[in-house]
């Protein structure tokens, strides 16, 4: 390609990154804004005040920690169940496992609203009052498909005879699993846990149907459009972004070594 072409490609790519980052940059910028009134949406002036009191908005802070706890619990539950499903699908030759796989993929290919409607209907049908339990169940459920598919892919990537070799060398099945299978699965487990965590932490649609009185962070943010957009929203979002960026950098070398 000639130089002009390369230049055009570079400019166009910068434009694409620009569209991706416009709302992110605005969010970081507005964490340093000194808003007038209840809505931190118009730039007034620079201040460090918001960063000195990141937890000043009590309702926001509570919602933030609710989501944090929920995301950890849902991710662990989903990875545990998803791991068992992946072992069953990948190891034991279950009949119809191909159909089960397609069924697993179905929640991934449908918008969240489909699962949300279905779950609300289920909980109403079995008279389960909406609250912490229904919230945890529904979050684990939409994470489950992702966890099972990631772990199954990881499991398919290594040689099953390794386990047999361990057993031949006298390791009981449980020890073989713990010393051989589990370490090999570890990167997949980590990836699945992080993905499930971020899916649960960000979920708005399913939560709005199944949370009852519980206020998660996304539910709080949705309400904020009418109530109050405090600068602490942007401060906490910037902090989350920094942590995500750090995790992403940590995850990148393993990406390289794989390919």
């Amino acid at each position, binding site marked *: 390609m000639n130089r002009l072409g390369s230049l055009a490609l570079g400019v166009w*790519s910068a434009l*694409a990154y620009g569209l991706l980052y*416009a*709302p992110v940059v605005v*969010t970081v910028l*507005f964490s340093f804004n000194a808003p007038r009134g209840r809505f931190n949406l118009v730039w007034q002036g620079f201040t460090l005040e918001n960063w000195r009191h990141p937890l000043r908005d009590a309702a926001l802070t509570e919602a933030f920690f609710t989501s944090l706890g929920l995301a950890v619990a849902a991710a662990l539950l989903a990875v545990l169940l998803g791991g068992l499903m992946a072992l069953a699908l990948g190891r034991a030759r279950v009949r119809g496992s*191909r159909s089960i796989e397609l069924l697993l993929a179905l*929640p991934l290919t449908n918008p969240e609203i489909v699962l949300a409607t279905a779950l609300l209907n289920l909980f109403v049908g079995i008279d389960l009052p909406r609250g912490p339990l229904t919230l945890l169940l529904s979050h684990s459920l939409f994470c489950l498909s992702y966890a099972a598919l990631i772990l199954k892919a990881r499991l398919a990537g290594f040689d099953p005879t390794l386990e047999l070799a361990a057993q031949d060398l006298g390791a009981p099945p449980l020890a073989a699993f713990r010393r051989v299978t589990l370490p090999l699965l570890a990167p997949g487990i980590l990836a699945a846990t992080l993905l499930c965590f971020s899916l649960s932490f960000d979920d708005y649609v399913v939560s*709005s149907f199944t949370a009852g009185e519980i206020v998660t962070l996304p539910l709080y943010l949705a309400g904020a459009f009418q109530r109050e957009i405090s600068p602490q929203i942007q401060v906490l979002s910037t902090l989350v972004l920094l942590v995500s960026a750090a995790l992403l950098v940590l995850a*990148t070398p393993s990406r390289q070594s794989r390919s």
Partner: protein
Amino acid sequence: MLPLLALVPLSLSEPLSRFGLDTVFNGRIANYLEVLQTYGPILVRSFGFAAIATALGLVLAYPLAFAIRFRGGRWQPLLIGLVVLPSLTSYLVRAIAWTSLLGDNGPVLALVEALGLTGVLDGLGVLRDGRLLNTAAAVILGLTNNLLPFLVLPLVVAMERIDPRLLEAANDLHAGPLRSFVQVVWPLSLPGLGAGILLSLIPAAGDVVNPLFLGGPNERMIANTIDNLLLVQLQAPRAAALTLVLMALITLAVLLQLRGRGIEELPLP
């Protein structure tokens, strides 16, 4: 899976009263005709918005994926990470940021005004009475921002599978850069293109947040309608019928895309 199946009998029922979600099954197929008649235009609008956003996204995503794969060099992992990073900011927080950017006192409208484009964009229907919030354009912009990574990643994955020796061979056979793009890169990137379109179109068509916070009452999409039917109007059977119509349309699209191949054969990230 079970909850999804349970929607079928619900979609053929009738509400017991106007004040609860309890229903009675009576095989009421008319629910489907009614929702198709009443909400057909919203269904069309949802897929229309999603299609426009996906098309806009592709115009940006394809060259970006190409640049990352063939010009990225050792920066490739970083460039891919930078595509993923914005998705880790909640889409609600991003909607709040768009409200600042597109608001009446925001920088985008100021720029449009400075360029003297207000009249033109108003005439094109991009602005409504000189405003950008609560318009279809705002919703589509929000959707495009959300779906961009889902277009870029499968494209990069598909392009990574292209053997560089093929391009060398094309070069040896005196194919110019344009010809080797048209005859080598483009056909081999098609699986990524298909997967990307699917991964973008579906969540966009079923999106709740962008139409709700960036659009006005005339930009509500299908998921907002289901939400409203179920939680406000307490019309669970109609909500279920509409959900199943949406699911059927999407499953059809997925099956057409897969055409008998396994889900793991798609170049998913």
